[in-house]
């Protein structure tokens, strides 16, 4: 996020008017361990740093380390919920929030952080994930069944248009639930979920895609036979990289494995890790799959009353 002068001044002012220098240093050390204010400002060790100089230096360093959103989020939490048992009244909070909102970010109360406003922009890191850090994600893998045969059988335009329609269905479904498409190749892709109820969101997206695809096949599909997909949902830790194609992760590998080896066409398979974290109502929609090699899996398919 690009920090403008007004936001920088507001944050500096907020620190100056609400806390001591020691408190400022304690806050900044949460993000930059071993932060030494004297060293940064050039004041000798035996001299106290004036309040305004300290705040200005800290905000400048926070900005240089691209930690403005995280730092501002901490101020919001201090202001609304308190920190270590004490409430702080941080001035200019409304203006700070407005400035950040203007830059395309909204405060997520559940995660206590600013995330990008998906109505304004959508990036693969939700605007806040840091390169090289490990996070817990839920992944949704989708694969078109019989891609090779389809590519051989139909003209290129037909395939392009059909797969484009499928991508549209996937995107509509995941973006409603704050999912991000990390990878889309010709015959499928990988979606990541990080915020909100990510396990529910990934599973519901998969179910939603299956429903939309059912209607698409009935009403719009250009192919002679219905377009079939396999969907799998799994979650776990994964190191984030901005170039998501470069990410190597056991969690992603396992998701792809579940999709490729344990999922029938036009069904969703959910790993036990995800299943246990789902809402009970959503768990009721899934049925247990026959025990596989190393874990319990659950499935969903669209079935109709006779």
């Amino acid at each position, binding site marked *: 996020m690009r920090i403008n002068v007004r936001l920088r001044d507001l944050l500096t002012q907020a620190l100056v008017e609400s806390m001591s220098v020691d408190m400022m240093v304690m806050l900044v050390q949460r993000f930059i361990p071993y932060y030494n204010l004297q060293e940064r400002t050039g004041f000798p060790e035996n001299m106290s740093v004036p309040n305004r100089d300290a705040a200005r230096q800290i905000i400048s360093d926070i900005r240089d380390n691209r930690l403005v959103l995280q730092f501002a989020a901490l101020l919001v939490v201090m202001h609304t919920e308190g920190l270590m048992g004490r409430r702080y009244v941080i001035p200019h909070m409304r203006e700070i929030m407005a400035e950040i909102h203007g830059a395309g970010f909204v405060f997520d109360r559940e995660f206590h952080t600013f995330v990008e406003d998906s109505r304004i922009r959508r990036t693969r890191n939700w605007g806040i994930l840091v390169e090289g850090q490990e996070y817990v994600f839920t992944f949704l893998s989708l694969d078109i069944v019989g891609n090779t045969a389809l590519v051989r059988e139909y003209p290129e335009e037909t395939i392009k248009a059909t797969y484009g329609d499928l991508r549209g269905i996937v995107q509509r479904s995941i973006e409603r639930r704050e999912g991000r498409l990390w990878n889309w190749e010709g015959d499928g892709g990988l979606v990541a979920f990080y915020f909100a109820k990510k396990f529910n969101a990934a599973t519901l997206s998969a179910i939603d895609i299956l429903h939309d695809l059912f209607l698409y096949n*009935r*009403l719009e599909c250009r192919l002679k036979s219905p377009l079939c997909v396999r969907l799998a949902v799994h979650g776990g830790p994964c190191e984030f990289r901005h170039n998501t194609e470069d990410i190597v992760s056991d969690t992603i590998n396992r998701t792809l494995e579940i999709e490729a080896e344990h999922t029938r066409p036009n069904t969703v398979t959910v790993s036990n890790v995800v299943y246990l974290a789902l809402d009970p109502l959503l768990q009721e929609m899934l049925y247990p799959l026959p025990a596989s090699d190393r874990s319990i899996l659950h499935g969903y398919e669209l079935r109709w009353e006779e």
Partner: protein
Amino acid sequence: MEIIVFSETRSVIEAFSGLSRKGKCDVSFMKIGELRKGLGGLAPDSLVYLDISRMDDVALRKALRMLSGNNGLRYAVIDPKNAIRDAGALFHGGACDYVCRETLRDGLTEKRVRRAAGFRKSDAPETGPEGAGSRTTYKPSGRDWKEIRPGQEYTFCFMFIELDNLKESKKVFGDANLSNPIEPFLRHVERSISPAGGRVWMWTDYGAIVLFPFDGRRCEAVLSCFKMILGRKVFSIEESGFNAMVSYRIVLHIGNTVYRVKGETGMLVADSLNSIFHLGQKFARPGNFYLTDEVFAFTPSALRDFFVPAGGYEGREILRMRLPL
């Protein structure tokens, strides 16, 4: 009856021009490339002839899908090169005539075209007195709300939707708390109906009567309601706030009413309105979606096998959607 011929082939145009000169048929010609555009503004009783001589397999399939998906429209295929191997399949798909090279050479007659038009009854408006069990004299309100004026009578597609099991819900949530879960449901209704041009006309205690403009050709409300039933569980989990499966029943019916703006409907008396309320409140079972046979005639053919007869009510045949499990 208007005949529209989509062709750029001289022999086809000559054959149909002769028909136009001799008979009383009103024939107009359009280019094949204008098919999609041309289908947009046709009268409900039109008969479309499509020349397929310059189409490859993909284009043909696409065109036939477009024609058969255009609910209520009668169409026929002209095949000057006798390229189609299975003409019967065209009829299974909904075509009402097939003109091969020999037929074209021998000449078309008005009688043949009228017989073709009669072969597949149009789903276009039928006439008859308004009343229980009888077909309505349709006064199409159009594809959208632009031409609809308060005080005028129009044909609309009526939708009844209401939450089920309210007594149980009241026990669970309490009277005062019931408004919280109802709000997301009402928003869900509004969001689901808007793509098909639906507008909530009357709010009932726990549901709504919705009006969809009806142009006599298609009824997109069916798809909206189909999606609402298909996505009921997803809505319950994700948005309802009930923390339990939400059950609602839906009924669709096509009928006439004098249009009054929302909030000024208190004194309105319309047979269609009574019918939809009766169907929704007395006939419909919890969690189900019903259509009257008037609506079924405008249901996309690809979804028709999801509806099964559910008996008659007030002289109308009612169909019920098979539910997703």
